[in-house]
């Protein structure tokens, strides 16, 4: 990816940024890279294995990262939505980050997947993606890629769940969430879970039980999904990170559907569009508040 490597080299050697967040070759496929030396810019790659969202690394809660200095970050369209979320919620200042947009044709669910990219191994958020060229960018690299393979499946799956009776749907989620061990990987990788002190970690009072039993797990996941309402960037990291294979994307996507329906808001990489959680309009529907 010569264009990207050249750009990184220039940004670093000119001192415009101190570090470039991108992807590189690792022992198991592509992985996040943090290039601080212009001489190492050649390590940067971009291909279908770059599934990771790097926006989480911009969090101000990571002192070992912020110490590196001003960053440039390579973003796919979905990643740009995450960066926009951080900007929208004042976690990062626009002038403190250089955004390198990369044109994307979809990524694999597993960064270790050598490919090629097919309908079977593509990440579930990619088919039908309309954000393959990020708007939020200081620079744009890469050639326009073909559309991701496969047809979108998530909304059909959600429709299936919606068609179930409440007890059936309850049973479905109980079975899925039974595997949760409260490792909190979903939270730690999420770009929008940046609270200094997560509600789940508070002990006085104990809002959510921390134990990985069905009751505690349900409380945690529903709370997190609701806290992500109107904020989730649909980057897919939570589901990818979950070591128990819980389909968290369905939960977040369902809530995103409700937010779209209620507030006509969809995750966007335009930080000037206010999210429902932080904005009020007199035309907001209120019939559910009594």
């Amino acid at each position, binding site marked *: 990816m010569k264009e990207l490597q050249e750009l990184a080299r220039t940004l670093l050697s000119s001192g415009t940024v101190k570090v470039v967040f991108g992807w590189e070759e690792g022992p198991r496929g592509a*992985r996040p890279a943090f290039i601080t030396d212009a001489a190492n810019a050649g390590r940067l790659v971009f291909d279908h294995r770059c599934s990771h969202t790097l926006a989480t690394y911009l969090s101000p809660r990571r002192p070992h990262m912020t110490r590196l200095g001003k960053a440039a970050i390579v973003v796919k369209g979905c990643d740009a939505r995450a960066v926009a979320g951080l900007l929208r919620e004042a976690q990062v200042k626009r002038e403190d980050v250089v955004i390198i947009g990369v044109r994307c044709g979809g990524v694999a669910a597993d960064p270790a997947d050598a490919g090629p990219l097919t309908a079977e191994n593509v990440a579930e958020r990619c088919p039908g993606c309309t954000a393959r060229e990020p708007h939020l960018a200081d620079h744009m690299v890469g050639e326009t890629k073909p559309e991701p393979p496969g047809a979108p499946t998530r909304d059909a799956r959600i429709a299936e769940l919606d068609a179930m009776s409440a007890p059936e749907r309850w049973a479905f989620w109980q079975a899925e969430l039974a*595997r949760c061990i409260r490792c*909190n990987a979903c939270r730690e*990788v999420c770009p929008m879970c940046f609270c200094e002190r997560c509600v789940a970690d508070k002990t006085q009072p104990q809002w959510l039980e921390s134990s990985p039993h069905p009751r*505690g797990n349900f409380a945690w996941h529903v709370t997190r999904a609701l806290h992500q309402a109107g904020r989730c960037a649909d980057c897919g*990291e939570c589901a990818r990170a979950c*070591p*128990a294979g819980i389909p968290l994307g369905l939960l977040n996507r369902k809530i995103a559907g409700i937010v779209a329906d209620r507030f006509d808001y969809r995750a966007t990489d335009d930080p000037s569009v206010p999210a429902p959680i932080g904005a009020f309009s007199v035309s907001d529907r209120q019939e559910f508040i009594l």
Partner: protein
Amino acid sequence: MIAKTITAEELGALVADLVSAGTRVIAPARAADGKVDYRAITRFEEAAIGAELPRRSLKEFFLPPTEPLFSWHQGKGDVTVKPVAVSFPPHVVLGARPCDAAAVEILDRVMGWDYRDELWFGRREATTIVSVACPGVDGSCFCTATGGGPDSKRGSDLMMVPVDGGYLVEAVTPKGQAFVGAHAARFVDAADAGTTAAAEAFRTGVRSRVAEHLTLSLPALRRWLEGSFDHELWRAIVLRCHGCGACASVCPTCHCFDIVDEPEGVRAGTRRRNWDTCQTARFTVHASGHNPRADQNARFRQRVLHKFSIYPGRFGEVLCTGCGRCARACPGGMDLPEVLKTITALVGTGASREAAV
């Protein structure tokens, strides 16, 4: 004991025997998403033995993700405490991977250190572990480097090796021997040297393949770790770590836990222990807010130190069986085998024993 064999059919019947006798049978089996976990089965057909490596290890059957320690009830001015059971119904693990079986035995050390953890050993005593020699997984396996291997019998009561039509079976412990005896009708003496030779070839083949992934001198690694607490390595390699703890949750040997009181209503509740990990920011934080391991560099360093320096220093063996799950599970691309390889190279140059930067 003479080596035995068992056909797949007889193994199926054996599982049926166990289940109808009330024994809980745990085996690798497919979850709803198609991936393999160790889970309870009721029929042998549900098992996926020798397929993909189960996503999680066996530790949850001895140290559950959440486990009640006791319950209390508050009366008028006094409290009654209700104990939990410390003896458990019989379990058989069928198709354990050698890395997972070995890990359970390694954990016996800390669980029996001066104070005997009755809950851990209660479950241990109730469980028979039947392992199956591993066909290897992928390049992230490094069991041989930790002193184990895809054919390691450590921690297993019985070891099975896949052969034509079934398995070659060896009893490793008296418990394994008793198991064979109790189900003698299902087993036959290994017919010929050909079967044992085939099994041996399987084992050595996988072993030499896995051994190519990583070679470690565990003593040299430990010495380096003891002397390199402030090494710049810990600042360079931890950037991609999210501190999420996925590694610890899938790890067969990570065992740190939290203890919490969970009220049920106003007057009663249960005290539980829950899986926890040194990788989270809050693991060491004091009530005052002071955090002795204040950034991810320090926390990742702790994990490596605990596994390859502290635990062996205390108990004589590393807290790792080289299963590679941490590398597979990490969403940020952290790679423990790579870290160990990097340290080995540093040891080799003899350089960087002192603190740098």
